[in-house]
């Protein structure tokens, strides 16, 4: 029955239509735009590869923000995924009031990119803010989180990490699919809690870990809110991520053509990394529902 090709195709048909309609067309159009100069008012003018040439050779801001973006992704993705997994693991037991804690941990994600987040985050990380206050308790000198180019990145990484809720929820759901009996077997085999976590839980939820890694990578490369609202890309463009630059080019400077070109470079970068992850996944992701067993 699963081999029933027509039925499977029937199920994805809406998706195929949707993709063609709502995604592919805009996709193609944005790709086309990337070869033009387009300032909204006047029709796009075809300029060939000029946008790409420009960003490759004479746009230091692009180079800078590319570096910033990569660095951000390198820091933020493991931080968020790891933290989310850890917290999900911790919250995955039955304890009086655990509901409350779970909701509390998700709250930052509900706040999303609201103004409140921005205002508050700036407060917290101000020189005289709460974070430095706490650090001060441990005898650490106040840090200029928002003003020091070396720390500003950490600020937005922390903010990104702070909103780990959705990854956590997904992990929580995934943890339910690990059969109880395997923990029992591992317990008998003498595995400690942490060994059970690493040897049983983690391998069995690798499909979802993989998902979260991919998704957080996609998010990190497109992260806009934190640097936009909290650091405004500064200081000294140390948090001027590509998404911010694309936004500026497209909707502030009205270079929609150039913005599209930037986007496609970002796209190519993420796609390449994702492709790499997909390729690597067959070495570390275990699918229990797959007909063919994992290969070594």
């Amino acid at each position, binding site marked *: 029955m699963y081999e029933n090709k027509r039925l499977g195709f029937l199920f994805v048909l809406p998706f195929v239509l949707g993709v063609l309609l709502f995604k592919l067309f805009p996709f193609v159009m944005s790709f086309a735009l990337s070869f033009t100069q387009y300032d909204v008012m006047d029709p796009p003018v075809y300029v060939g590869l000029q946008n790409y040439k420009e960003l490759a050779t004479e746009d230091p801001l692009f180079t800078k923000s590319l570096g910033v973006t990569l660095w951000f992704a390198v820091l933020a993705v493991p931080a968020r995924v790891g933290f989310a997994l850890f917290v999900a693991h911790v919250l995955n037991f039955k304890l009086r009031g655990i509901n409350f804690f779970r909701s509390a941990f998700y709250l930052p994600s509900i706040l999303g990119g609201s103004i409140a987040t921005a205002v508050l985050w700036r407060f917290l990380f101000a020189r005289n803010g709460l974070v430095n206050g706490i650090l001060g308790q441990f005898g650490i000198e106040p840090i200029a989180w928002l003003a020091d180019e070396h720390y500003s990145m950490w600020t937005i990484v922390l903010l990104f990490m702070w909103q780990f809720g959705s990854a956590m929820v997904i992990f929580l759901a995934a943890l339910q699919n690990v*059969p109880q009996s395997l923990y029992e077997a591992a317990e008998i085999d003498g595995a400690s809690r942490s060994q059970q976590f690493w040897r049983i839980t983690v391998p069995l939820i690798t499909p979802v870990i993989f998902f979260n890694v991919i998704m957080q990578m996609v998010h990190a490369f497109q992260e806009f809110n934190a640097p936009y609202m909290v650091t405004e890309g500064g200081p000294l463009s140390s948090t001027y991520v590509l998404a911010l630059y694309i936004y500026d080019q497209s909707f502030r400077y009205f270079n929609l053509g150039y913005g599209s070109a930037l986007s496609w470079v970002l796209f190519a970068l993420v796609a390449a990394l994702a492709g790499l992850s997909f390729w690597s996944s067959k070495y570390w992701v275990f699918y229990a529902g797959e007909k063919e067993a994992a290969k070594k």
Partner: protein
Amino acid sequence: MARVSLSKIEKVYPNGFKAVHGVDLDIRDGEFMVFVGPSGCAKSTLLRMVAGLESITGGELRIGDKRVNDLPAKARGIAMVFQNYALYPHMTVYDNLAFGLKLAGTPKKELDLRVRQAAQLLEMEHLLERYPKQLSGGQAQRVAVGRAIVKKPEVFLFDEPLSNLDAKLRAAMRVRLTELHQTLRDQGQPATVIYVTHDQTEAMTMGERICVLKEGVIQQVDTPVALYEKPANAFVAGFIGSPEMNLVKAELQPLNGSAAVGLGGQVLPLSGARSAALAGRQGAITFGLRPEHIGALPRPQGDSLPVPATLRFTEHMGSEVYVHFNIGELPFSARVPVEQASGLHGLQRGAALTMHLQMGAAHLFDAASGLAVA
């Protein structure tokens, strides 16, 4: 020292179901104890409580001299074969076997050796690279057994470890497990074994003692021979032995100053000591006689009692024949060697027979309590 003792152990499941009712049991160090009982009688529950996988809601569990009620499973020095195998789906067979040893920090060489030895013992060396979902049911079960025996625990818990194996392999495994147990004892590292099985042969041949359970209550704990010969109550009598003992409603009645049993319109005199003990007693009783103690021909020893019967049907089992017949309205079955049964060939349902009962091997149980009488 791995004596396992249960005292007043109780288990109430979260849904309120009381699965175990105050079980008292003392399993000696190095003993091979078999649990038997009908499906759902709490064998697995008990095993899982000993393992530490199920909380103990009442009573005390000791392993060695330590109270372990609240000790986590991994600290109890046990190995277990799960009824549903619980293999790690993401590990090869090799890794499934090696996992416990790895955790224990066993040196690589020794680990490899022990894994391969276990694989050899269980005839699955060719499966070591497979993943669990590439195994057949019996193969998976062998892996589950292997996972227990590569460890050298103080207590083995086996939950129907051979149920999915063919007779031949099962016989071989039975011998190997017994030998393993023996070897360990001979090496001075005796391992206590608690073994759940539904297989009479396994229970009888492997168990040093057998614990018969029913609905969470122990019925009898004794050696296989004693259980077979002196069942404490009608339930044990019916449960042990295959095909099962004939158990029918009967009447104890005096007969010429000694005792006799009336059933199906027949009066069967009891003999010897038993008759004397029961002389004068009277009333409803449960009469038990094993199929092997009923013949189609008189016993050469002359200790059998001919009784008129009507044939229901016969089953041919190779070397023997099961004869199902009625005495009066009461159904009986007999297990007779094929050569005794030649006379039955061609007989129709309802044909009149004479069957020969060895009354000396009969069991009598109180009709109400089911307890053995005399």
